[in-house]
């Protein structure tokens, strides 16, 4: 603590816990210095009238990020597709290499308006990888190329409900829900 520091009682004054009258005489000068400091605080309000227009305009622009999923139109998928059957049959890629493995994400969610998948491969961002509704009876799909290794993910339904993949092994996510596990 330097000799230039405010005395602890003066700090209490600054905090508003005591008044200047509570300070011993020898600290009054320091107290007044402290109050002058506070008086120099600029409390004038700041007004941003252009904000609503700018925000609403920004919302109508398409999102900056380019979606990285590939649409796989005529997917011949069994309803109970087990994810790792989607792996290519080539030799296992070395971990960390960019040699990517095709994975089909599938969720049956007839009542949903929007479904996305979020996980370790896309920073858990529910907006990064939307699924596409491919059938009238509510199958949603997305196809990603992911590197070999361990991934965790969950589906996000209607932007609010985090739902593990019913077809995949699940582990505790530490937040009261479960994450699905994918090892490639």
């Amino acid at each position, binding site marked *: 603590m330097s000799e230039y520091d405010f005395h602890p009682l003066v700090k209490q004054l600054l905090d508003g816990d005591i008044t200047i009258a509570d300070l011993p005489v020898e600290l009054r000068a320091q107290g007044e210095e402290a109050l002058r400091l506070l008086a120099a605080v600029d409390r004038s309000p700041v007004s941003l009238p252009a904000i609503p227009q700018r925000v609403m305009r920004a919302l109508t622009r398409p999102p900056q990020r380019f979606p990285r999923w590939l649409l796989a139109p005529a997917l011949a998928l069994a309803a109970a597709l087990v994810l790792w059957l989607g792996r290519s049959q080539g030799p296992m890629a070395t971990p*960390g290499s960019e040699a990517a493995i095709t994975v089909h994400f599938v969720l049956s969610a007839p009542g949903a308006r929007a479904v996305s998948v979020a996980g370790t491969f896309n920073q858990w961002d529910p907006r990064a990888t939307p699924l596409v509704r491919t059938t009238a009876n509510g199958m949603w799909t997305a196809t990603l190329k992911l590197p070999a290794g361990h991934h965790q993910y969950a589906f996000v339904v209607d932007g609010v409900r985090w739902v593990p993949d019913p077809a995949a092994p699940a*582990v505790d996510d530490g937040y009261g829900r479960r994450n699905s596990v994918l090892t490639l």
Partner: protein
Amino acid sequence: MILTVLALLGMQQGIADRLSGRVPPDVGAVVESLGTSAAARGLPIDPLIQKAIEGSAKGVPSARVIAAVRLVAMQLDTAAAALRAGGMISDTLAIAAGAFAINAGMSAHDITNLLMRRGGQTTMNVRLELNVAGTLVAIGVPSAEAADLVSASLQANRPATELLSLPSQVQSEVARGATPAQAAAGLARAAAAQARHGPPPGRPQPPPHPPAPPHP
């Protein structure tokens, strides 16, 4: 592994950059601190960063995110100790996989056993083996049986792609009425038999289709 001060500072900035904009500052500060000391202990920091980003993305309050990240750090420490006890020297990918297995419910003791029974397998597959073992536990195979199944498969020189399919093989057996423990034990026995005797002479072929009756 001792990191120099400069490396630690660089590490801190690296962590901060990955978290920037994705987690609130109070979470970021704790994760930076936990991550830097974890890195100095030779632990991977990626699981810590991922857990923090995950919590923030899920809208979880900061205090709970911090608690979850601390838990991951503890699991990494436990995994590293289990690996050391099993004769492995610091491989951050393997430690991360070990922490996943622990989170899934595997015991450190079983991880050590799995490693000690690997024999001379190359290091690269440890990560895969632990990921598979953890996944087996996640689908209900008890910890010891999961370790046994992976060890037995390794000893039978099963390729990596087959290891990856162990969980689905267990699930097929479960669909036929076995418990996960029974399914895993059965598959382990088959693998052990193969290790002892080599592959069976000619796999049983499906019976040939009877020739179609001649049209009248």
